[in-house]
């Protein structure tokens, strides 16, 4: 065992622990990540290369592509933002209060995870179409949801909810009630206790959940295309545009949009990650 580890340079050699298998786990992890994540991403980066830098730029800056990217990222960000607020409230309610059917509501939160996205999309569409249950109430007010960008936001909000609830819930559950009692005995009212003590402690989890909801929404396809109506320049999302390009055998153009989405998502998630780091600067890790 010790003999095998000496093939590693000194700085990589682990301290002796009772848990075996650095070599094994490292090997499996690297192989797995390469096959599952890195290779497809490399292909995604290589394919548009045949267009040349100028070609990629032209493919991505077409007005129709820009409009689609704007809608995809805009709706994903808005949906994630809405979920940050209401997901926090749902998690709060589920952790703090006892009420009838609490377990049922707790289970309902996971439905957007489990539902086939096409089913979700068709259900949302039939609800929000001008003759649907909700749509017919909004129609007289001049609000159109289905087949507009608003519909895209409804869909991204729907699929993102469980991410926020399920990341915030355990952190809220673990908060010691003594912290609130301490704040109260020091003179803080309920709002001050929430804003100064509870919220900063759940902020890292809230950011994680929001980032996950965002990431899921950017790539979402199935549930959006039914409710969006897919009008070019108005309610057409980037993943759909990629599919359209593929159907036209424009593989490099499709990959160029994909690469752009990849880079943009990566940058946004990196920013969220840094923000999250900052929000837990007190953890001393």
């Amino acid at each position, binding site marked *: 065992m010790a003999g095998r580890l000496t093939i590693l340079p000194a700085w990589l050699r682990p301290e002796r622990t009772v848990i075996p298998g650095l070599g094994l786990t490292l090997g499996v992890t690297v192989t797995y990540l390469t096959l599952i994540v890195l290779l497809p991403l490399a292909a995604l980066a290589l394919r548009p290369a045949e267009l040349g830098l100028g070609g990629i730029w032209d493919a991505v800056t077409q007005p129709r592509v820009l409009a689609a990217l704007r809608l995809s990222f805009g709706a994903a960000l808005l949906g994630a933002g809405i979920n940050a607020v209401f997901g926090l409230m749902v998690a709060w309610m589920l952790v703090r209060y006892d009420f009838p059917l609490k377990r049922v509501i707790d289970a309902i939160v996971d439905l957007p995870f489990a539902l086939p996205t096409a089913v979700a999309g068709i259900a949302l569409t039939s609800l929000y179409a001008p003759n649907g249950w909700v749509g017919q109430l909004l129609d007289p007010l001049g609000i159109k949801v289905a087949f507009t960008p608003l519909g895209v936001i409804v869909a991204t909000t729907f699929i993102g909810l469980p991410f926020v609830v399920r990341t915030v819930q355990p952190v809220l559950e673990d908060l*010691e009630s003594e912290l609130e009692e301490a704040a109260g005995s020091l*003179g*803080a009212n309920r709002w001050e206790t929430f804003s100064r003590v509870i919220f900063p402690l759940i902020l890292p989890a809230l950011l994680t959940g929001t980032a996950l909801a965002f990431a899921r929404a950017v790539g979402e396809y199935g549930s959006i295309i039914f409710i969006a109506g897919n009008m070019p320049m108005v309610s057409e999302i980037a993943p759909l545009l990629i599919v359209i390009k593929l159907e036209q055998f424009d593989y490099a153009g499709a990959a160029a949009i994909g690469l752009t989405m990849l880079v943009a998502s990566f940058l946004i998630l990196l920013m969220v990650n840094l923000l999250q780091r900052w929000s*837990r600067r007190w*953890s001393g890790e």
Partner: protein
Amino acid sequence: MSIQISGINKRFGGFTAVDHVDLSIASGELMALLGPSGSGKTTLLRIIGGLDFADSGQLLIDGVDSTVSEPHARRVGFVFQHYALFRHMTVFENVAFGLRVARRRPRPAEAAIRDKVMGLLDLVQLAPLAQRYPNQLSGGQRQRVALARALATEPSVLLLDEPFGALDAKVRKDLRRWLRDIHKGMGVTTVFVTHDQEEALELADRVTILHQGRVEQVGTPAEVYDHPASAFVCDFLGGGTRLDCTLAGDHADIAGLTVPLANDVDGRGAGIAFVRPHDVEILPAAAGAAARIAALHPVGPELRVDLDLAGHRLEAVLDRQSPEAIGLSPGALVGVRLRRANAYPA
């Protein structure tokens, strides 16, 4: 500020945590609430602090009925066993918290907060660590931060729930002395909960002993130690060996020995006696009652001796350097005399 508790009751479901407790705590006093777990001491403290509310009874703080008032209306500082520091705030911000959320208008200016907080951190000897976060501190340092935080709002009553319970023995001892000094310096009425009788006896002006939600005895450390009011109190305060006895006025018959009683007992007949290790005298084999040495345990400066006295186990303690201690060996026969005992009707 004085605290008056009269007829306070508190139940949790079917469990009676506090059962008709009457207690008065004088202004500036350092009072210990002592008892085993489940005795209701923490619940009583939380009721005084407004973290729990009594089902019935009345609580007066400085003459004002505070039975149902919110914690922040009571001017009470609370220190928790596990510190309950805000881990996302620096030490400085933890201590400043009570000043920043103060109800008074206008709130203290930033410079005033700074002076006040740094003054308190000096008091608890943590000024150099003001910008650290709680998880960069040791347990003893965290508890000092918690104390400074509770003192920042200038409470009229300071309440501490097992303040040293989670700390190791040495730190505990230092913090005890240091709490005593702070109490002396500030004169704030202080109530602390502990299950450690040594801590209560060492630190408090008076000790309240609780058992199953009821007050068993209230008195100075010397009073409760020398004159335990009940078998429970005697046992809990390190009563020593518990033996069956026969009560006979000012003395009791224990395992064939006649032993003077330290307390006044009504009645005669069967009883329970407690003999403290310090009251067991070890004599040469021919004198006193015959006993066999079962085991010897040297503990620091002391020698603890387990004795077998006619089938009863008895504990004695000697100075390890004393002449009596030097010749002892397990299995040897010695003489035993009991100087005094506390006894209660069975």
